[in-house]
């Protein structure tokens, strides 16, 4: 409750939070098919129809409703972003915690492995995963998840290493607390703040990467809609039908902006040490 109040009191938090909330509603509607028209339905007679009362954002080359496709696309983007960041967070946290706790050889092997993954530029690593598994929504989830796992591992390992040597952890050990209890109760709980900030910012990156992958034709496959794919399709028609460029571009931008603003606000609120005015 207190955190919600703080977000609301923070100017970026207020705007970012509002944008994210609106997008969540759109994404849910899009994912569950609550759209004004069927996103796949081709109204041939209304091809390349400009924005109007019946098609608020116009129609595309095949006469499909842009607003409905946009909503479905937002649903897709958020699904990919959510699941990829969730998996990266879970795997990264477990790896980071165990690396810090067990140390020695396990830590060395694990962190070198993360160094190897970090040696690839993100989009390249994602492309490599897509090549192996073949393009698709869940491949994007796996690709983006793998790209961000090393980052979460590092975010967790650093602070976990210093927490491990703190008195309250020693005390817990002396009292005979189990390893799992100490790891989850004493280490993990103290890492919630940096993790929350990282998750919010990672969601923004994941949306960006997903849009990039689907723009290249390696993400969600047609005829399903995705924002990157819609933009890519708009390239040859942008003079004739600028709404095909404008709405998906705006939708991608605003969604990333929302998470960036929220992430900035959360960093200010939860981590005063790294506060950047």
């Amino acid at each position, binding site marked *: 409750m207190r955190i919600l109040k703080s977000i609301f009191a923070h100017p*970026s938090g207020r705007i970012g939070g509002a944008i994210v909330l609106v997008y969540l509603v759109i994404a849910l509607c899009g994912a569950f098919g609550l759209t004004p028209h069927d996103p796949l339905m081709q109204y041939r007679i209304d091809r390349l129809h400009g924005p109007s009362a019946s098609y608020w954002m116009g129609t595309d080359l095949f006469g499909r409703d842009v607003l409905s496709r946009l909503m479905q696309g937002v649903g897709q983007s958020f699904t990919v972003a959510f699941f990829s960041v969730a998996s990266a967070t879970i795997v990264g946290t477990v790896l980071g915690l165990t690396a810090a706790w067990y140390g020695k050889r396990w830590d060395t092997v694990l962190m*070198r*492995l993360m*160094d*190897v*993954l970090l*040696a*690839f*530029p*993100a*989009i*390249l690593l994602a*492309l*490599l*995963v*897509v*090549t*192996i598994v*073949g393009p698709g929504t869940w491949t994007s989830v796996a690709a983006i998840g793998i790209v961000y796992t090393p980052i979460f591992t590092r975010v967790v390992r650093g602070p976990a290493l210093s927490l491990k040597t703190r008195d309250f952890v020693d005390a817990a050990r002396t009292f005979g607390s189990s390893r799992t209890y100490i790891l989850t109760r004493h280490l993990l709980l103290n890492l919630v703040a940096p993790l929350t900030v990282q998750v919010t910012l990672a969601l*923004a990156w994941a949306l*960006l990467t997903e*849009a*990039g992958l689907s*723009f*290249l034709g390696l993400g969600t496959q047609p005829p399903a809609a995705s924002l990157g794919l819609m*933009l890519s399709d*708009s*390239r040859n028609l*942008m*003079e004739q039908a*600028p709404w095909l*460029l404008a709405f998906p*571009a705006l939708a*991608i*931008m*605003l969604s*990333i*902006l929302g998470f*960036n*603003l929220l992430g*900035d606000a959360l960093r200010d609120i939860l981590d005063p040490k790294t506060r*950047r*005015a």
Partner: protein
Amino acid sequence: MNYLIRRLAAFPLVLIGVSVVVFVAIRLVPGDSITAMLGTEAGLLTPQQRQSLATYFGIDQPWIVQYWRWFTGLFSGDLGISVTYGKPVLTVILERFPLTLELALLSMLIALAIGVPAGVYAATRNERPADLGVRIVAMIGQSTPSFVVGLILIYLLSVGFGVLPTMGAFTPLWQDPLQNLSQMILPAFTLGCAFAASVTRVSRSAMLDVLSDDYVRTARAKGVPERKVIWRHALPNALVPVVTLSGIEFGYLLGGAVIVEQIFALPGLGRMVLEAILQRDYALVQGAVLFIAFNFMIVNLLVDLAYAVLDPRIRLEGR
């Protein structure tokens, strides 16, 4: 010194790791490479022909033997032969690299030319309307993917001025500098814009930190003109995080800006990798990914070193 030695010692290890990951990843791709190479014509091969092709390319050997052959080949610059281009992989990569390098340098230049002054300007007007304006623009810039910027630029140029940017062609800088710039300026600006936003944010916050330092206060108290305080005393120290950020970004850009190269149909490294992946040109993907990762690691190492040079207070040993 300790830290540097450890970093250098880990370098070959990480590189070997990268080569293993790339090698295994490519072999996990479904389908055999002979079918991928020949397409539908592979069906016409007799089992004997298929076997002799496999022997020729060495793919009938166990993975470990194949890996060893590839790995030892790396030391003599032999990355294999690209099936699509019919040329050695290294030759294909080096043909594409100048464009990627130029694009990376140009876009960095644009980003720094916009970002640093904007960040300094905002920091000196902290919490005033001008600062707020710069921050809002930077935030929006940071949230706009480069391909959105690129498409909007193309749209504005074609609708507003009736000109279409030159696409698909690349004239090397040394052949015709003007022609080269006319082809590169738009993609470079596209990449530079997105990056300028991050540079602005980082230089603003670094500048704010430095401006509250004691030595800046001392300089002001001594009566040093404000301009000089900002540009001569404060800025050099505020540049440390900007250098780090630029280095990392430069490393990324050397891997080829896949999407921007795709939009402007530029024959750079990124687009080459994408095409090689789509064509299943395994040798090329393998070689190019290793080349890119190698560059990326070298740049990151140099950034770490530059860190110590720029700010002698930073002691790398402790990290």
